[in-house]
């Protein structure tokens, strides 16, 4: 019962937020906070009603565990980011409609995960697409919104074609029922598999369709990028799950050629996932804008999630499901930290910032814990999910996927560290001397996210329990947990032990540190400069071209972006050609074409 209230509440919330912000903008922003928190509470309360069905207007819904999990992640990200809206009210051109669209897209995402039939799924999918399309341009670039919309609509139209084809074959639109008959028809299953997953690929930002991610996340309003990268990317994962979990991919492709034990169709997509990991990492290392950097890291992590979901086995699937959650809160926390920096200094360019830790220590801590989880370093959550994915890969012996996974995880140390060193540490420029730290309302979500990342890093039991239920529902054996250690085929991970041992080590180091004399506090400029006297902190901060020697190695890399832009321009030229051929202002041209048509029909029509 609570879930239809939830969805309706969201859309009503959107309208009320709009009306309230008519009166006072700040109040409107706080309304978004209230409604998203309300949604979170409703979701947690409705935990027991998994399996119930309900309908709104003309759309049918069904609450499944995976739907509940996905919408839980989504609403959490929305709720945490909503706290930041009130600070951007004066910086946006249409703040009232921003609040409206914010809650509107939240309603869309939640509805999507509970859809019972494919048309409802598609309706809510499109709602999210067009509502987020109108938020992105409120940021720095209009082109980003158009590219974002084009690629999303390519994906969703392909999926719509898939839905219609499914309906034509199986006669029903119900999600569970529609995919059933594909089991014994591999050729058709392959076609539908590739068409239906398109929307997922475009939303996760897998290799050929990733170009919108840096554009949209990089230039969206600072308070919407966390939602874009933390939340909306997960919708794609839901579609990817549907096209592998609900569509019986593994049974349908039993007959087809297998590579390393994986059907060729699924392996092809896994290669795309691997390529997007490598590409995302390499491009992220290069970026100078912190937000673009984290956007590319979302591409890389999207690759992890896709590979995990496609494997549909005990470990990698559980790993990707948990990585979904970890990446959502970690990249949301990272984006929020960057948003605080942008709120205070007005820029997110890494080379223009430095020494932020001295002005906003809590933001620094949030960013530190977020990137530890993003990079998959214990004791944070990211480590558990990456460990599971790698164990899954090792179990099946997929070496090339493993190569990309290793490159991605080690590479992530590089690109997560770049903003840490160049934005938060290093020299503080005089112009940033008197910056205030993060306002109170921003501190709340950051602390909550920090606690969550740390908690689920040390005690992932609760999350893995839910994921186990999802796996049982999807028909694969769930990931085993005994006490607090996760049992994988070839290894055991006890996150509590890891944390305790890490604490023990930290304790010994602290004792060693405390034993010695107190050390003398020295200013940041008093460092070894081979005895030269330097007085300008800005020049003395190493922020730009952080990995120059490494970037030089792949400076001239082929970019799919130019290829797709060229393709778009070809469309533009085709339009001009059509214009020239048929729409000249001389009637003679039209007469000429009439004679051609008549000739074609009469001569050709003889045989009719």
């Amino acid at each position, binding site marked *: 019962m609570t879930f239809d209230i939830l969805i309706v509440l969201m859309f009503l919330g959107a309208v009320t937020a709009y009306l309230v912000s008519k009166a006072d903008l700040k109040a409107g922003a706080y309304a978004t906070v209230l409604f998203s928190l309300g949604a979170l509470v409703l979701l947690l309360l409705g935990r027991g009603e998994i399996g119930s069905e309900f309908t709104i207007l003309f759309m049918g819904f069904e609450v499944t565990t995976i739907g509940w999990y996905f919408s839980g992640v989504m609403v959490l990200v929305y709720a945490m980011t909503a706290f930041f809206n009130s600070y951007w009210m004066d910086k946006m051109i249409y703040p009232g409609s921003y609040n409206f669209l914010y809650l509107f897209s939240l309603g869309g995402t939640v509805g999507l995960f509970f859809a019972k039939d494919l048309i409802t799924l598609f309706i809510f999918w499109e709602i999210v697409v067009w509502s987020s399309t109108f938020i992105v341009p409120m940021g720095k670039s209009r082109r980003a919104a158009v590219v974002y919309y084009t690629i999303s609509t390519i994906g969703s139209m392909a999926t719509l074609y898939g839905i219609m084809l499914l309906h034509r074959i199986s006669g029903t639109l119900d999600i569970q029922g529609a995919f059933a008959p594909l089991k014994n028809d591999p050729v058709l299953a392959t076609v539908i598999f590739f068409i239906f997953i398109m929307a997922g690929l475009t939303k996760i930002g897998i290799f050929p369709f990733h170009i919108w991610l840096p554009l949209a996340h990089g230039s969206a309003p600072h308070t919407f990028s966390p939602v874009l990268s933390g939340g909306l990317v997960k919708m794609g994962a839901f579609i990817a799950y549907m096209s592998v979990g609900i569509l019986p991919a593994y049974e349908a492709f039993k007959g087809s050629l297998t590579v390393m034990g994986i059907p060729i169709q699924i392996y092809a997509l896994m290669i795309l996932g691997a390529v997007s990991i490598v590409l995302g990492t390499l491009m992220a290392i290069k970026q100078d804008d912190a937000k673009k950097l984290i956007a590319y890291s979302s591409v890389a992590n999207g690759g992890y999630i896709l590979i995990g979901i496609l494997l549909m086995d005990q470990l990698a699937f559980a790993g990707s499901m948990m990585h979904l959650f970890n990446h959502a809160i970690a990249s949301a926390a990272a984006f929020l930290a960057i948003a605080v920096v942008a709120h205070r200094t007005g820029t997110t360019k890494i080379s223009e910032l430095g020494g932020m830790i001295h002005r906003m220590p809590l933001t620094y801590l949030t960013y530190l814990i977020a990137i530890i989880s993003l990079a998959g370093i214990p004791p944070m959550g990211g480590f558990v999910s990456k460990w599971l994915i790698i164990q899954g890969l090792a179990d099946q012996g997929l070496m090339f996927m493993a190569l990309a996974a290793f490159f991605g995880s080690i590479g992530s140390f590089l690109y997560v560290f770049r903003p840490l060193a160049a934005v938060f540490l290093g020299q503080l420029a005089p112009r940033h001397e008197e910056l205030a730290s993060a306002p109170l309302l921003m501190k709340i979500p950051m602390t909550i996210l920090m606690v969550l990342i740390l908690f689920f890093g040390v005690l992932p039991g609760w999350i893995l329990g839910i994921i186990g239920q999802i796996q049982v529902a999807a028909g694969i054996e769930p990931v085993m947990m005994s006490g607090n250690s996760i049992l994988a085929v070839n290894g055991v991970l006890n996150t509590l032990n890891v944390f305790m041992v890490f604490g023990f080590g930290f304790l010994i180091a602290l004792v060693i540190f405390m034993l010695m004399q107190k050390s003398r506090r020295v200013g940041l400029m*008093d460092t*070894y400069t081979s*005895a*030269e*006297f*330097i*007085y*300008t902190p800005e020049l003395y901060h190493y922020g730009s071209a952080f990995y120059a020697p490494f970037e030089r190695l792949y400076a001239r890399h082929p970019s799919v972006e130019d290829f797709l832009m060229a393709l778009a321009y070809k469309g533009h030229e085709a339009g001009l050609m059509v214009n020239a051929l048929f729409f000249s202002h001389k009637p003679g041209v039209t007469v000429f074409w009439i004679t051609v048509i008549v000739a074609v029909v009469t001569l050709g029509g003889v045989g009719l």
Partner: protein
Amino acid sequence: MTTNSKDMRKTWEKIADYFRAHSIWMKWYCTGCGAIEMPPTMTSRFDMEQLGMGPMATPRQADVLLITGYLSAKTLRRVIYSYEQMQDPKYVVGFGSCTLNGGIYFDSYATMTRLDHYLPVDLYIAGCMPRPEAIMNAFDTLIKMIEKGEAKGWRHYQENHDWYRKNQLHSLKEVYVKDEFHE
């Protein structure tokens, strides 16, 4: 160098001094012609590493500052800046007659004539430039001094810092200068 007979150091200090004596890292600031004497003392014939000594890249990590030659005003400013960047129990060893009394440049308008006027020098090595044997002997003496706790130049610098500072300003007008190349 006054040697006080009774030993006021605590036992812990004694142990620490034993370690400090047998592992001295040097910041060899090649200020003058003496620097060329350092390689022979490090390489196979004399090998100062057997005394536990080795070169270190930055003053932060170093214990002993070797002034290996004449000091012009500009160089002295940098030497003082480096000296202050070194960590406590630090020692200074002056090589050659230029650090003692200005050597052959005693009458130059730019060269210092008495190093310990500006920095607390624990040990001077006479010679224009001392050969590796003399340097090894000096290091041996330095080790014995540290062991006995006599190398307290750094404490002397801390206690009458203003005296040293007055002398430095008298000769150099300013220690921390701004030069056009770093604006």
